């Protein structure tokens, strides 16, 4: 049985497991950043990092399966990421108009 995990790249091959491992590391770095960093902008940046890692897995499986759906879904993910960044940054700018926030825990007025 052939190893379907090997992706043809030009004349050579690339192991899909390596690429998935890279996506795995990047996603965990993003998750760690969201949890430990306090600055709201950095948290948004870490969310973008996680979305990029997810995109990488989609592209990897699209290449491994020779199926375009993964790439199309990656494009949709980019749209969602752009929308999320725009709205998130607009909310941040709106908050910073009133006061400086260096710690997301300061924004707890809505807590019951």
């Amino acid at each position, binding site marked *: 049985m052939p190893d379907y995990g090997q992706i043809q790249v030009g004349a050579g091959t690339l192991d899909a497991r390596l690429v998935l491992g890279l996506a795995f590391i990047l996603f965990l770095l993003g998750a760690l950043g969201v949890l*430990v960093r306090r600055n709201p902008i950095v948290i948004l*940046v870490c969310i973008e990092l996680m979305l990029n890692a997810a995109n990488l897995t989609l592209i990897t499986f699209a290449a491994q399966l020779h199926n375009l759906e993964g790439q199309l879904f990656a494009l949709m993910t980019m749209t969602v990421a752009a929308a999320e960044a725009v709205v998130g940054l607009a909310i941040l700018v709106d908050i910073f108009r009133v006061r400086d926030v260096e710690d997301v825990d300061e924004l707890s007025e809505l807590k019951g």
Partner: protein
Amino acid sequence: MIVPQIVFWVMAVIAVLGGLGVIASRQPVRSVLSLVAVMLALSVIFLLLSAQFVFAVQVIVYAGAVMVLFLFVVALLGPMGEGTSHHLRFHWGLSIVVVAVLGAFMYAQLQGIGFRAPDKLDTTFFGTVEQIGTGLFTTYLYPFELTSILLLVAAVGAIYLSRGGRTASEVRRQEEAHAEEDNVA
């Protein structure tokens, strides 16, 4: 041919170092610039995986437009530090435990991964603009149109949020002005 592997490893190292830079930088602007490095490295890997159109979109839209928006906001808000108040005890420890558990689950899934056979073996014209366009405008027309509505909603929402909210004193002044107008009438 070992070239794809070399390119992959170089870009993977850049991406991981950039990812470390994102979470370790004290200044938000350095985090944003590290993320740009990650995105450019990933775009090269996309190209390796025969996703030419996604590569172009990643460089132009993501690393270009979205990250410039981030830089704009960072520049607008000025230099910022990192909050030091920790309302949660053992914040670092708990975060690392959560990430370690998540990582252990994902690692376990990666161990037993099995790949099924590719759908078709012809990869000559895979991931080109033509193929992406055909997919977006035939099979996936409905989700494609939905993303346009999503972008419209996001744009309207961003304009609404950033239209310049009135501060409390401005509201009071305007109410007084209205009251005077009423008196005149």
